[in-house]
């Protein structure tokens, strides 16, 4: 595995004597445009290195492709134009900016930058929005520094074919220099600017799912209205589970083929796979692996018995600040996070019991409420672990109260309190498998957001154990994993035919695993109303949202983490 550092440090730099102070990199004019549009968007892209294609950028790329080829879409040069240059690059140390100009029209000693934009002119007197004006002005300033006269620029709107001339006035010049200065200052700050409030710009923004403007503003009390449903759109892709012994995943042309040992091979589109979970002895060809990594689709490896071994993914995200904060968090800060994870878990355990138990368990509910009260006051992580263990014993003693009495298992053998390694009854086998799936999902999510999944705040890092994913999983154990176990058993979807006894322990058959996975995935699809945001979203979306809130807390954008709790 090549680490990011190995790739980014040039070899010859190591030989130079003494460190040189690194000059701030030149700002691309496009980035100053982003800054004027939204300072936070600029920060996320320029400083945190995030980039997400949205419809606009994808179609914009299409347009620029056409610009780079001298095809019939280029506007005719105006009168007196001697020469044009395409994709013309200019930089200036003095201004601290760089630009790639779509087209420059040269007339004797003057020059006119032409910038291509998709869409139509703005419905304002100037007919061009401010960010585009500033971007054009930067191009003009660069041309002036290169020795040309430059009094105006042109924006060419592809949709309507209109050329709109923008005079480079002294006011626009001042505005542009101020924007460059503010952008440079913002880039040097440790925290991202806050989101825009109720801005009509957000719905069309490519990074809206990462930025979460309305949710953050609500949690920061900068807005009171219910968040717009900007980010509840589901990711279209779903996990691909490979379970059968000897199942192969191959690549064929531009798609994947799943071939079970004794079944029909199936074609799978690359865009349908959010991540791959490979159990036991399955084969993933190198070309399939390359294709998955190229599209940033992680592969989780598990043993046949369902132990989570690790994750194959590309290089870690560029979100270095987040990982740094992860490791530099102080002991008291980590304790507060740990407290939140544990309290949310115990409260959700209590809710699940209250809703699903078939007989009187009032004393258990009292005990759990008491554990929550004590967790609030725990002075350190060890005390917290003690309280969590106590609550778990109470909870699992009452767990059978949530199961049907007439399940087709040998009575007395179904569940005898929580035990592991190996699970000594069918319910424990199901619980272990469910927790594995949850940990796998949160490891994938944590990695995608840019965390180091192995460094947690409550769970101690042990080799090969994704402590952060285990931290994040706590609040979801009752809501997702335990709930799926109860559903699968009470609905009769998992029967005694799906579990096998091996030595002292119980394990699931492949068929049992597939059946259980379907119930688990069904749970993730289930929609609930978010108690704070009051809009509907799926558990799958929550597994993405909660880690993002944790990231926002670490990066100082939110004051405190709040575990997700249902009522």
């Amino acid at each position, binding site marked *: 595995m090549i680490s990011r550092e190995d790739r980014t440090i040039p070899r010859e730099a190591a030989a130079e004597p003494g460190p040189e102070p690194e000059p701030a990199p030149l700002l691309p004019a496009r980035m100053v445009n982003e800054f004027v549009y939204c300072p936070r968007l600029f920060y996320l892209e320029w400083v945190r290195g995030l980039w997400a294609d949205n*419809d606009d950028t994808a179609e914009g790329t299409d347009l620029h492709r056409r610009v780079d080829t001298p095809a019939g879409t280029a506007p005719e040069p105006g009168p007196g134009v001697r020469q044009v240059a395409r994709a013309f690059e200019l930089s200036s140390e003095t201004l601290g900016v760089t630009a790639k100009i779509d087209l420059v029209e040269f007339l004797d000693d003057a020059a006119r930058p032409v910038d291509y934009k998709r869409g139509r002119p703005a419905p304002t007197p100037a007919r061009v929005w401010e960010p585009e004006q500033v971007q054009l002005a930067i191009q003009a300033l660069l041309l002036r520094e290169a020795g040309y006269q430059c009094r105006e620029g042109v924006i060419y709107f592809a949709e309507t074919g209109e050329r709109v001339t923008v005079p480079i006035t002294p006011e626009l010049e001042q505005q542009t220099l101020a924007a460059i200065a503010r952008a440079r200052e913002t880039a040097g700050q440790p925290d991202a600017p806050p989101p825009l409030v109720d801005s009509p710009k957000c719905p069309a923004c490519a990074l809206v799912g990462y930025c979460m403007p309305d949710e953050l503003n609500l949690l920061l009390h900068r807005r009171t209205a219910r968040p717009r449903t900007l980010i509840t759109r589901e990711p*279209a892709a*779903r996990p691909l589970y490979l379970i059968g012994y000897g199942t192969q995943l191959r690549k064929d042309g*531009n*798609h994947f083929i799943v071939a079970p040992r004794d079944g029909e091979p199936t074609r799978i589109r690359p865009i349908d796979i959010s991540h791959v979970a490979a159990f036991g002895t399955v084969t993933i060809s190198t070309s399939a692996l390359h294709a998955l990594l190229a599209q940033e689709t992680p592969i989780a490896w598990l043993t046949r018995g369902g132990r989570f071994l690790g994750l194959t993914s590309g290089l870690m995200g560029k979100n270095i600040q987040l990982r740094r904060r992860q490791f530099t968090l102080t002991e008291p800060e980590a304790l507060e996070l740990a407290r939140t994870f544990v309290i949310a878990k115990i409260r959700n355990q209590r809710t699940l019991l209250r809703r699903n138990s078939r007989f009187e368990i009032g004393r258990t509910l009292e005990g759990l409420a008491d554990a929550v009260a004590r967790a609030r006051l725990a002075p350190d992580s060890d005390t917290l672990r003690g309280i969590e263990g106590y609550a778990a014993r109470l909870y699992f003693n009452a767990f059978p109260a949530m199961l049907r009495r007439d399940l087709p298992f040998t009575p007395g053998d179904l569940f005898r309190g929580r035990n592991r390694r190996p699970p000594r009854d069918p319910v424990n086998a199901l619980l272990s498998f469910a927790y594995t799936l949850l940990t796998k999902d949160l490891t994938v999510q944590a990695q995608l957001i840019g965390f180091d999944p192995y460094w947690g705040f409550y769970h101690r890092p042990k080799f090969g154990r994704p402590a952060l994913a285990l931290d994040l999983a706590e609040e979801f154990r009752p809501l997702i994993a335990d709930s799926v176990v109860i559903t699968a058993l009470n609905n009769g979807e998992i029967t005694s035919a799906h579990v096998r006894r091996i030595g002292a322990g119980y394990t699931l058959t492949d068929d049992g695993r597939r059946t259980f996975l379907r119930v688990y995935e069904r749970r993730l*699809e289930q929609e609930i109303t978010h108690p704070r945001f009051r809009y509907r979203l799926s558990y799958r979306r929550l597994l993405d949202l909660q880690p993002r809130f944790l990231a926002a807390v670490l990066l100082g954008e939110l004051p405190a983490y709040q575990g997700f709790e249902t009522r």
Partner: protein
Amino acid sequence: MERRRYLVAYDITNDRRLREVYREMLGWGTRLQYSVYLCDLTRPELIKLRRKLLELIDRDDDSVAIFDLGVPASSRAVVPEILGRPPTLPRQGPAIY
């Protein structure tokens, strides 16, 4: 990101390009008939497919038709009536093998 279902049909006048377009389409949808595909795509995915096809076809002689059938599994989606061999429809949900 919501996916919509698109019916993509093409008419390619040259065997080499036909093979290339066919190979490309396999990564985007399920084949309903020769040169007719059903593809569930988000908007950015549709844009990428369009871009790919434009790279492969000869814009003077070939043609590709794209019909928006709406959101699959919604009441307003267009569902083609099929006589004869039942179609393979695009898969939804998790893939478990």
